[in-house]
Every structure is written in C-alpha cells, then in structure tokens.
C-alpha cells in the first residue's frame, strides 16, 4: 500500500482534549494509518494512502469535530524553495552553455570579418540553419511559451520582445537559406543572420542566469536570520533532560543551556548565570551578563555559564520570529518612489512594439539600399535592446538589501515607505526618560554637612525612604541596599506629597525632602545653597536630610545619560539634522541635560498626552519630523511623527507603533538608520536613472537616430549584450549597498 505523510495547521485548538478528539476523528477516516496532533504547534501530521484519502476528507474529518484544517497551506521550507531554485538555475546554465557554443559557431561562420577564419563547413548556410534551430526553439522555448501565455491575457513583456526580435531574424535567415532566389530578385545578396538570433538568445539567457544568481544575494539577510534558529532544545520534563525539536517546546518548559550553546527560545532565567552574546539580534558586539530573573532571547549564544530558563515565548511569538516576519513584510512592501516605475512599465512593452513598427516603416521607405535588410536589422535591434526588467528591479532589490542590512545592525524597518521617508528627516525629537537617559534614577552624590559619615547619611536616608513609594526613593533605597546596610526601623512615618517624608529614626526626628520641606520645617540651608544650585544646574534632583531641625546632608539623584547619547546626537548633527528633546521635567533640569548633550531645542514640562501636539507643532513649521521614544508610553507621538523610531527594550519589540525599531538601544543607531535610508535612496535613484536612461538613450540609437549624422547603427548582437548587462548591473548596484558603512 502506498503511504504518504502530510502536515497541516489546525485552527481553533485550545486544550489537550482537542488533541484527542482530532486524532480520533482523523484516524477514523478510511485509509488513514496514523495521525498525531501537536497542541503547541497547532499542526496535525497524518499518514495515509493517497489513493483513498483526499484533502477534502481530511478537512471534513477536522471540521466535523469543530475545528478548521488548513490542508493546502504552504508548508514548503526555505530549504525546499532553495532546492527548486537551484534546479531551475542548473537547467538555465545548461541552456546558456549549449546556446552560446552553438551560437558562437554560427557567429564564427557567419559574421563578416570572422567568417574567413572559419572552416568551410561552418560557412555553409544549411549547417548554420541546423546549428541555430535548437537554440531558437529549444533554448528559446521559454520565450515563446511566456509570449503565448501573456498574449492570452493581452499583455506583453520582455519575452515577447525577445521572441519577436529573434524570430524575425531567424525566419529571414531561413528564407535566405531555403529560397535564396527570393531575395536575389529584389536585389539583396542572400546572407543569413542566424548568428544574430542564436547569439542574442544565448546572451539574454546568460544575463538571466547572472541576474538570478545576484538576486539570490538580495534576500540573504532573511536566510541568515532563519539560519539563526536553534534546531533542538534540552528540556527538563519529569525530572529528565530530553532533547526536543524546537517546535515541540511549549510555554512553561524549563530548558537547560550549557556553555557555547545557542539559546533555543525566549524565556526568563530560573537558575544560574552567564554571559550571553546577543550580537546576532541586537548588533551589539559586547556580551551581556545575565542572572536569575533576566530575560533571554532565542537564537542568542550562551558563552560562559550554565543556566536553566523558563520558556515564555515559542514559535511565531519569539523575538527572532517577529524580526523575520517584520523584515519579510518590509521587503514585500512598496516604496512610493516605485510608483513612477510601475506606471512606465505598464505601457513600456506595447510602446516598444509600436516603435518597432515605426522603425521598420521609416527604414524601408527612406533607408539606404538594401532597405529591407536595414529595416529588419534595426527593428530587431529595437526589440532586443529595450529592457523593462531593469526598471522593475531598480527599487525592490535596493529595498531588500537595505532592510536586510538594517536588520543585521539591529535596525528593524517596518516598510519601504518608512525607509524612503527617513532620508528626508530634518528634525528629530528625542524623548528624555528611558531614551536619552537610562530611565532609572541613580544616586550620584552623597554630601555630608554636619559631622556625619557618607555611609551613615545614606543609611539614614535609605531607612526613612524605605516606606516611600516615590520613584526617587527607590534609587536611594537601592543604593543603601547595595552597600548591604541594615536599615533602621522608622516610627511615625509620614509622606508629605510634593515635599518629602518624615519620621522617627533611632529616637530622633528625621525629615528628608526638597527645599520646600526644609522651609516648612524652618531648617536653614546655610552655605549648602551654592552646592544645591550647582547640582541642580547639572540636571540632578537634590534632596536634603535634616535631623532635629538641623540640615545634616544632601543626596543627589539623577537619571543617568546613556553612554551612546552624546556620540549618537553628534552624528545626527553632522548629518545636518536638528535635534530636540521632549520631557515632563522642569525647565531647569531639562536645560541642564540639554546643555550636557548639546541640544538647543528643549521642550520641557510636556505632559505625556501633549507630546503628540508638540510633534505636530514642529511639523507645522514645515519640518519632516522623527520622534524617538520607547514605543510604549509615547505611541501617539510616534504615530504622529513622519517617522516614529522606537528604542526597543531588547525583548519587547514595540513593532506596531513604530516605523523603525532599534533593538539594540544604542542611540548611534538613529543616525545609522538615517544614513541607511539615504544610501538606499541613492541606490534606488541611481538604479532608476540608469534603467530609464538606458532605455531612453539606447532605444533611439537602435532605431537609427545616430545614422543620419554619424552613420552609426547598432548591431542587434550588441543590443543583446547591452540588454543583458543592464538588468544585471541594476541588481549588482543594489548589492553594493551591502558594503556601505552605516555606523
């Protein structure tokens, strides 16, 4: 009995009992010998006899129990697709070799100047006919088939032009060979042009071969990303370690990772610690140290330690899967600049066909003798030289390489339109907290004033702040805990909103807060005033601590500026882009940070819901604005900006809100994204200028525009060389983008 296996997705599954129901129902189908259903992957694998079982039967077995089977879903893997492409490429190469050898022999025997060196047999017209025929109808079969099927749709394409052009040359030559007296009668020397037909087919196929090879390079980034995926995971189940294929891992599984191993899926470390190389995802080359509770990302590489982690995301939910999806979507999207090429290419081939008629009529009527021959050869040249493919390839190949290159550097671009708009940006607004700064305040200065030690001061502040919920309190408690101080007990704790806190510590009344609190408590600042102003002017928040109505010390807290901020902003300013900062902080703190970073335009005291309006205000000045934020709190502002750039947290890619997501949190990537956009657009423009220019200049040359002045005509064989080179050079130019430096 013939057996076949099929895997298909099932929709509507939500529990383990679904698995049983489905397996039972599928096994009941006559001819099915086995059925396994996987809840995690939502896929069924069925072994059956194809002579008895049809897709419809499988599908109804699934729908009868209340689910939906996607039996015909595409389940081809990237590998299979690759194999098929390789097969096609191999057959194309064989055709190229055969047609170039045969075409070369015909050329040797038939081309003026060369033919004298050729053996007599090759100069025989009948031998040339025999050699050229397989090239025309076997190697060139694809052109005919494509032409016929296109004609059925009343459309014409590149193949139509090649088929008509070479057929004209071939038929004329065949007539000259079989019935030479026919052309002699009208005063033309019987000379065939088999070489033209055969060599053109060989060269155009060669061009297609190179083009296919080069095109494979444009989608390399996706292949690389898919290749990052781990194949198996070492899962701990029922106290045992088992190696499972990645698609059988489910959420909640505990997975062990040893040194040098790839982390299979996303999760949170349960035990152990290690240093992890995340460069393949974030583009950041420094390994990151991770401990219990930290998030690990699938496809990254564990370097030194052994740890276990709990799976939080599998399958299509993992970060890698999301990145792949995003890049694939971007590569399939259309850039606005392509619209012109779209419009032109829809009229292109019919217009070239009409020009071919014009060429024939003009040369026949007004051309030199033998006018029929001139008319024929120039018509063939026009048909052959026209190259609509270069126009079609100009934009998409550059977009593919550009978005792929971005992904390699941790810059995820949502679509081609975002990539195109990014090159026009002239103002970038940065959100302060969490974007320019780390977003978590840290203690920067501890200044004792009375006879009290630094440690004692921090311990006291930590003790009294322990009960506070203020975000600054968190920084102080954390700093005290890091020093492993045993915090004192606080009695009569009270938070005074907008001022600070108070309480009794070790029997003494302690107050901790801002200047307002000190005023309220009648505590004199004294000479500390200068120090306080100095720290506040550099963007720090200063808090004062008083014991029994006497100021004993100052503690300053600040949100630390990211290391990459200064360099990142400088790079943008060098690109001629104005940088602005938006924040809810007061003007003084905001100015201080702006001063450190060299930002002149400061939008301070802006509430979260006003950020969008601020973006629109700057847009109203006629600026093309990009907004950089964390993508979570400032989603409306990101959406309002011409280009919304989200600094991803490295684990939670805020893809939806942003046009560009920077997964590496490195602020230099903002400039890199702009540079990438500029370089991609330059490549696209160059490609389009080349593709349009090529056709606009060479089609008239092929028609004979240079003949009246210079007596110059384009040999159809050279026309085919130009045609083949033109589309290859567009793809090659796009591939050059890969080598450009963006960071």
């Amino acid at each position, binding site marked *: 009995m013939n057996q076949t296996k099929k895997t298909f997705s099932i929709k509507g599954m939500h529990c383990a009992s679904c698995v049983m129901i489905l397996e039972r129902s599928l096994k009941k189908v006559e001819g099915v010998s086995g059925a396994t259903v996987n809840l995690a992957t939502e896929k069924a694998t069925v072994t059956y006899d194809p002579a008895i079982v049809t897709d419809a039967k499988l599908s109804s077995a699934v729908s009868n129990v209340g689910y939906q089977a996607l039996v015909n879903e595409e389940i*081809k893997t990237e590998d299979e697709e690759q194999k098929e492409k390789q097969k096609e490429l191999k057959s194309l190469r064989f055709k190229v070799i055969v047609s170039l050898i045969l075409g070369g022999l015909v050329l040797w025997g038939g081309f003026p100047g060369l033919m004298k060196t050729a053996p007599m047999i090759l100069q025989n017209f009948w031998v040339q006919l025999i050699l050229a025929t397989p090239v025309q109808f076997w190697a060139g079969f*694809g052109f005919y088939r494509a032409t016929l099927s296109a004609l059925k749709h009343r459309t014409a394409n590149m193949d139509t032009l090649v088929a008509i052009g070479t057929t004209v040359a071939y038929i004329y030559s065949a007539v000259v060979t079989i019935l030479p007296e026919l052309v002699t009668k009208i005063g033309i020397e019987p000379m065939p042009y088999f070489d033209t037909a055969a060599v053109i087919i060989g060269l155009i196929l060669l061009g297609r071969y190179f083009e296919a090879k080069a095109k494979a390079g444009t989608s390399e980034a996706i292949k690389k990303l898919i290749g990052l995926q781990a194949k198996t995971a070492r899962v701990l189940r029922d106290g045992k370690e088992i190696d499972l294929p990645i698609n059988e891992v489910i959420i909640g599984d505990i997975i062990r990772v040893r040194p040098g191993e790839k982390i299979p899926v996303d999760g949170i470390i349960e035990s152990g610690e290690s240093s992890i190389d995340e460069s393949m995802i974030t583009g950041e080359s420094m390994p990151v140290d991770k401990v219990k509770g930290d998030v690990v990302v699938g496809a990254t590489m564990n370097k030194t330690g052994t740890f276990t982690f709990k799976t939080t995301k599998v399958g299509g939910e993992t970060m890698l899967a999301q990145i792949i999806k995003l890049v694939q*979507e971007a590569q*399939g999207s259309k850039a606005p600049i392509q619209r012109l090429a779209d419009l032109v290419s829809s009229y292109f081939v019919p217009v070239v066909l*009409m020009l071919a008629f014009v060429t024939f009529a003009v040369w026949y009527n007004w051309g030199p003798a033998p006018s029929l021959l001139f008319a024929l050869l120039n018509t063939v040249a026009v048909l052959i030289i026209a190259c609509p*493919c270069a*126009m*079609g390839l100009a934009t998409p190949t550059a977009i593919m390489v550009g978005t792929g290159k971005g992904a390699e550097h941790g810059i995820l671009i949502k679509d081609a339109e975002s990539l195109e708009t990014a090159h026009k940006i002239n103002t970038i607004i940065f959100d302060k907290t969490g974007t320019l700064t780390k977003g978590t305040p840290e203690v920067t200065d501890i200044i004792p004033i009375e006879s009290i030690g630094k440690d004692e001061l921090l311990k006291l502040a930590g003790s009294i702040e322990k009960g506070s919920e203020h975000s600054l309190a968190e920084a102080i408690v954390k700093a005290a805990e890091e020093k492993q101080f045993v915090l004192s007990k606080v009695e009569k704790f009270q938070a005074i909103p907008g001022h600070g806190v108070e309480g009794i510590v070790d029997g003494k009344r302690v107050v901790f807060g801002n200047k307002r609190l000190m005023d309220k408590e009648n505590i004199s600042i004294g000479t500390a005033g200068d120090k306080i102003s100095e720290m506040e002017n550099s963007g720090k928040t200063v808090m004062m601590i008083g014991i029994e109505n006497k100021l004993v010390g100052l503690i300053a807290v600040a949100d630390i500026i990211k290391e990459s901020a200064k360099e990142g902003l400088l790079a943008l300013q060098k690109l001629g882009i104005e940088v602005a900062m938006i924040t809810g902080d007061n003007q003084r703190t905001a100015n201080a940070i702006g001063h450190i970073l060299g930002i002149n335009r400061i939008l301070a005291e802006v509430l979260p819901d006003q950020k969008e309006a601020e973006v629109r205000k700057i847009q109203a000045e006629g600026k093309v604005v990009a907004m950089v934020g964390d993508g979570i709190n400032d989603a409306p502002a990101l959406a309002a900006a011409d280009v919304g750039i989200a600094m991803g947290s490295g684990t939670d890619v805020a893809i939806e809100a942003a046009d560009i997501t920077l997964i590496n949190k490195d602020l230099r990537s903002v400039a890199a994204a702009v540079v990438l956009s500029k370089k991609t657009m330059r490549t696209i423009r160059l490609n389009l200028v080349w593709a349009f220019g090529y056709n606009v200049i060479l089609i008239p040359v092929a028609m004979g525009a240079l003949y009246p002045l210079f007596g110059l005509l384009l040999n159809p064989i050279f026309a085919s060389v130009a045609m083949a080179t033109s589309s290859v050079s567009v793809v090659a130019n796009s591939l050059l983008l890969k080598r450009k430096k963006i960071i």
Partner: protein
Amino acid sequence: MSLDKIIVTLASILGIAFTYWFFLGKKEKEIQVSDSVDIVVEGGYTPEVISIPKNKTTKINFIRKDSNSCLEEVILGDFKIKKYLPMDQKVTIELTPKKTGEFTYSCAMNMYHGKIIVK
C-alpha cells in the same frame, strides 16, 4: 511612392493601431470574490481583477503554471506580502483589508499585473 512602400507604411500603421488596441485598449473584467479564489499564474494572473469585501478575510490561492522566472514571486506591495510561488502548488494568501480602494499586485519584476479591488 512605390506600391511596396505604400503597403509597408499602411501595414505599419495598422500594426501600431492593433498593438494599441490589443494591449492598451482591453477592458478589465472584474470577478467578485466572497470567501476564496484561485488565481492561475500563467503569462499573467487569471482572473486578473478581483473584488473582495472590506474587513473580511478572503483567501487568495495562487497556482503557478508558468516556469517563467519572472512569475516566481508575487508581490502585494500594499499588503506587504511577498510570496515565492513553487510550480504547480497552491500558495494561499489571506487578506483582511481594512480600507477600500484599488490595489495592484505584480510579479517580482513588475512585468505582470493583477488588481484587487476592495469594496
């Protein structure tokens, strides 16, 4: 002007007129689709123009019968979809359009075109 020249001129003019009528003067026939549609990829897309409803998922099954490498990928740029079409295999694309309008799609080289009208 000799007879042969007159014939060649007339034939060329007729040729141009025919080319214009044949390729550029065709009327598009629109097929209304409610759930799913099979589009045969052979020298173009049959049916070439389909109309689908807004906010509803429609399955579009591409079946490529043409070995021309131009047609090996289909690009629905407005929906950000690019799919490789293996020979003689059904490749299903699910669309749930959120806005109405006319959206063209094409092969990877932008030589063959089809249109999706969302109503």
